[in-house]
Each structure stands twice: as C-alpha cells, then as structure tokens.
C-alpha cells in the first residue's frame, strides 16, 4: 500500500522535474539576449527569411501561446527540425540515444561493481594502509577533469599501446558476433573514463557510511550472537550503508550525463553528447535544445528507477 503511494509520489516528482526542465529551456531560449529565430533556423539568414521563419514557427505570437504550442508538440515527440541536416531533431537524436544509454549504463553498472568491494575494503581496514591509499586516490579521483582523463587513456592505451580503438563505436561492415565484439572493444575506453571519473565519490561515500554502520548497536548485537565478522559486514552493515549510496547514484546521474558529453567528444563516440559537440560548432540550436530535453528525460527516468530500487531496499519505505 505504502509502496504504491511512495512510487506515485516519486512519479509526480519526476514529472514536475521534467516539466521544469522543459519550461526553463523554453523561456531561457526566448528571453535571453539573442535572436529567438536562431533557436529554429541557421544563423546568417537574410531579413526576409527571418520574417518568414518568425511566422512559420509562430515566433511572432504571444509567449504563452507559443509555450503551450511547444508543450503540445513535445508531448507528441516533436522537438523541432535540425536546420543543419533538415531532419527532425527527434530523429537525429533517437539514432544516437542508444549509444549514450549503452555508455552511461555500462559505466554506472561497472562503477557499482567496482565501488562496493573497494568501499567495503577501505571501511573494514579503516586507518590501515589500504584505507589510506583509497582515501588519497579518492581525493585525486574526485578532482579528475573528464576530458583530461579521457585524453590520457586514449593516448596511453589507445595510441601508444594500441590495445583499443581511439574513436567511433563500432567497425563498419561487421555482422553477428564480431559486431558485438567490436562494440565492446570500442566501449571499453570511454566507459572506463566515466567509471574512473565517478568511482571515487561512491567509494568514499560507501566507506564513510559503512564505518558508521559497523559501529552501530545492531552490529555489536550480531557480533555478540557469534555472527562471523564477514557476515556482519556483508549482510548487516552493508545493507544499511548502501542506502545513502543509492541516493548518491540518483544525484550523480546528472553528472554522469555531463561526463558522457565530454567523453563522447573525445572518443568521437556517436551518442547524444557528440551530437551536442557537433551542434555547438554549427550553432544548431534546435539540436542543442532537443538534446537537453532528451537528456533531462533520461535522467528523470533513471532517477525514478533508483527511487524504486530504494523503495525495495529500504524496509522503512514499505512499512
């Protein structure tokens, strides 16, 4: 019963967040200094073309009328037209979204797979040398600038050692199993760039909460009952320590998407982020605006998934 209420509340919150994102972009684009026509058409047009564009896109109508028209189009999945490719923005971006989802999704999964054992290791050896190393690496890791890290990996592992391809997402002309192998091969460097850039925050958060949990009375009780320390750590303390980490995953997804934009730029990875980079160079505003709306939607959905996971992990939500 309560779980449905919780999910409903989260769903509404997600919808509000998305509505806010859409509204903010709409008004930013139109109220900021700069020609609103630029948001729908190529820069450097003649005055005559500008006027027709104003009319064609309804930019001469009152702002609120435009706003509701924009929302109506959005609900139907219409994000405008990329003037550069003369293609609907939604089509341009939807071709690329799967790559971004693959990249960010695998990075998130790998971060958790690596982050949990590392956090446990540091917490259970608090103040030992493993912990010291984890803490120092953690501070440096949190300070890494994603493009710097990407360039470093690309230069060393991709160029000097030649272990990995340095750009693109897949070799053309492959089918079947070798296609998927090539996809995986191209994925490794960008994925690791993102993992290394965000691993530190997870490990440090998990370490801090786990140390706190291990000092709690229920852990003492478990030990007093004769439970092995390993079981106390993995069964009792970790379950509770994972809750703040789950919250962090939700909070960090926005950062992850930003990192993906930078990473895709470096590795010429054909995702939404690379589309943003190309659109910046060409001042293709419809694509920029559509990409933000699409990424915001992705983040909102990912957050919703984390919230649902949280609901299942935390018995207090169910109670």
């Amino acid at each position, binding site marked *: 019963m309560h779980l449905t209420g919780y999910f409903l509340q989260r769903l509404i919150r997600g919808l509000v967040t998305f509505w806010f994102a859409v509204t903010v972009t709409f008004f930013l684009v139109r109220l900021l200094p700069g020609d609103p026509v630029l948001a729908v058409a190529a820069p450097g047009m003649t005055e005559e073309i500008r006027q027709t564009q104003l009319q064609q896109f309804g930019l001469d109508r009152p702002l609120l009328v435009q706003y509701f028209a924009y929302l109506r189009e959005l609900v139907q999945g219409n994000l405008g037209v990329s003037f550069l490719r003369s293609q609907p923005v939604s089509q341009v971006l939807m071709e690329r979204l799967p790559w971004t989802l693959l990249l960010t999704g695998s990075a998130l999964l790998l971060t958790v797979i690596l982050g949990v054992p590392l956090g446990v290791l540091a917490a259970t050896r608090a103040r030992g040398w493993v912990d010291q190393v984890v803490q120092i690496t953690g501070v440096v890791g949190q300070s890494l600038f994603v493009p*710097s890290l990407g360039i470093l990996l690309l230069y060393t592992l991709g160029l000097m050692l030649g272990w990995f391809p340095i750009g693109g997402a897949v070799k053309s002309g492959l089918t079947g199993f070798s296609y998927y192998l090539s996809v995986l091969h191209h994925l490794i460097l960008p994925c690791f760039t993102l993992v290394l850039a965000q691993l530190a925050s997870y490990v440090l958060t998990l370490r801090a909460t786990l140390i706190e949990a291990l000092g709690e009375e229920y852990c003492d009780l478990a030990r007093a009952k004769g439970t092995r320390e390993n079981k106390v750590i993995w069964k009792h303390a970790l379950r509770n320590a994972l809750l703040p980490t789950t919250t962090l995953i939700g909070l960090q997804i926005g950062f992850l998407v930003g990192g993906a934009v930078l990473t895709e730029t470096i590795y010429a990875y054909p995702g939404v982020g690379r589309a943003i980079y190309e659109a*910046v160079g060409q001042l293709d505003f419809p694509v920029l605006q559509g990409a933000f709306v699409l990424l915001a939607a992705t983040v909102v959905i990912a957050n919703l998934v984390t919230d649902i996971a949280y609901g299942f992990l935390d018995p207090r939500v169910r109670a």
Partner: protein
Amino acid sequence: MTMTNTSTTAPTLPPADLKPAQRTWRAFRRNPLGMGSAAVILLMVLVALIAPLLAEFPSGYGIEILMPPSAAHPFGTDDLGRDVLAQVIWGTRISMIIGFASSFLAILIGVALGILAAYAKRLDAPISMLVDVSLALPVLPLMILVAALVGPSVTTLVVVIALFSWPEVTRIVRSQALSVTRLPYVDAARTIGGSHFWIMTRHLLPAVAPIIVVSVVLTASRAVMSEAGLSFLGLGDPESWSWGKILFNAQRSGALTVAWWCTLFPSLAILLLVVSSTLVSIAYNDARNPKTREN
C-alpha cells in the same frame, strides 16, 4: 618544518581566551597538506595576477610547430607554433577569474536563498523544491545551450556557471541554518523585537559562515572545471586563453594524438588546482572541528 613546529609548541596548551578563528588557524597551520595546498592556490593566484610579466600573450603563428618540451619552450609548442607554457600561464588568469567570479555570484545567490528558506517557513517548500529539481537535471547540457545562445565570452561563462551552481550552496546552507533557527537565541532575538532582516544577517549568517568558507573554495574549483568543460566543447571566450581552451585546440587540430605536451600541462594545472582546493577545505574542516583538532 611543520613537524618541528608542532613538537616545540605542543606541550604548551593554547590560552583559553583564544578566539575560535585563532584556534582554527593554529590547528590549520599544523596540517602540512592543508598548508601546502593553500600555498599552491596562492601561487596560482599570483601567476594569474602577474601573467603579463611571466609570458607574452600567445598569439599569431610560430615557426616551430609541435615541438616537444625544450629549454626555449619548457611545455613545448602547439600546432601553430605557440608556446604552451605561455598558454597555461595566461589560462591560469582566465580560469581563476571565472572560478572566483562565478563562485562569488553563486555563493551570493545560494546563501541568500538558503538562509531565506531556513528562516521563512513559507518560502522553504518552493525553494527546496527548486533546489531539488535543479540538482536532478543534467547541468552541463543546459549550460551548453545557454552559453551557445548568448554567445561565448568571459561574462557569459561567469553568469552561466553561477546560474547553475547556486543550488548546491543553497542546499548546504539551508540545512545548516535550519538547525540554528531552532536555537533559543534566535527566539530571543525575535522576542526583543529584532527585525527579520536583522536576525537573518546578524544571527543566521554568522552561524553559517564556516560553511560559506568551504563552499567558496569548492564552488570555485567546480566552476573552474565547468569552465574547462565548456571551453573544451568550443564555448570558451574566443579572445582569451583558458586551460579548457588549450585542450579544445588540441582536440580540434588533432594535436592531442601526436603531442602529449599540448594536453598534459593544462590537465595538470586543472588537477592541481582542484586537488588543492579539496585538501584545503578538508584541512579547514578538520581544524575547525574540536574533535579532530588536537588541542
């Protein structure tokens, strides 16, 4: 050096009438990592200030293209033969200006809204909602959109970064100020007829001041990263150098695949600044906390 200091001063307990700020400074001074990081930041500020004395503004073309580090060019040259060291030095200036200016703006907005949310119950819900919603959104793509629309310049970058960095500050300030608004002295101030503005500026603001100190450092270092990110994507000020822009040039010209020095040195500059900022704020927090400081 710090070690010997500690051993000579440690036996004498600090006098009890020391002000909290002095106690913090005493403890901070003994932390070699914190002091070292503070020195690095000050050095970078100095480089930013006297950049014109250290190197000529890198412009035009040189004959020596993509030369590795040498005596004449300690950081090598880029694809147009410009000295990379000079670019990093001048980049320090812009990165610092943007870091400090946008963090100042973000702190101003963030602290004002944070205190307001904690003090005015009616404003708490909308402000908190706004903060939660903004923190959930992917900020970089939004900054890209706005910066591209307004047109790249130093002012644009400062405003755009500040505009999307304040929610973090508001969240921290609000939670700290919230615990203070429940303290008896705030009630007392209200009872004797203190105006809302007076209570907020005289009682709540000093209570959150230590948090603001940490926020300034961390927000500034994050702002430097945001600036580098935007510049790397080609949204940097076309007239000036920044660390991100050096990376952008290397990426666009393809120099990053042949000349490691074009990307290594600006990357190290960013890393050094951000690590130092983090360490300074950790050291400051430790020094301020009576539990972690030793006296």
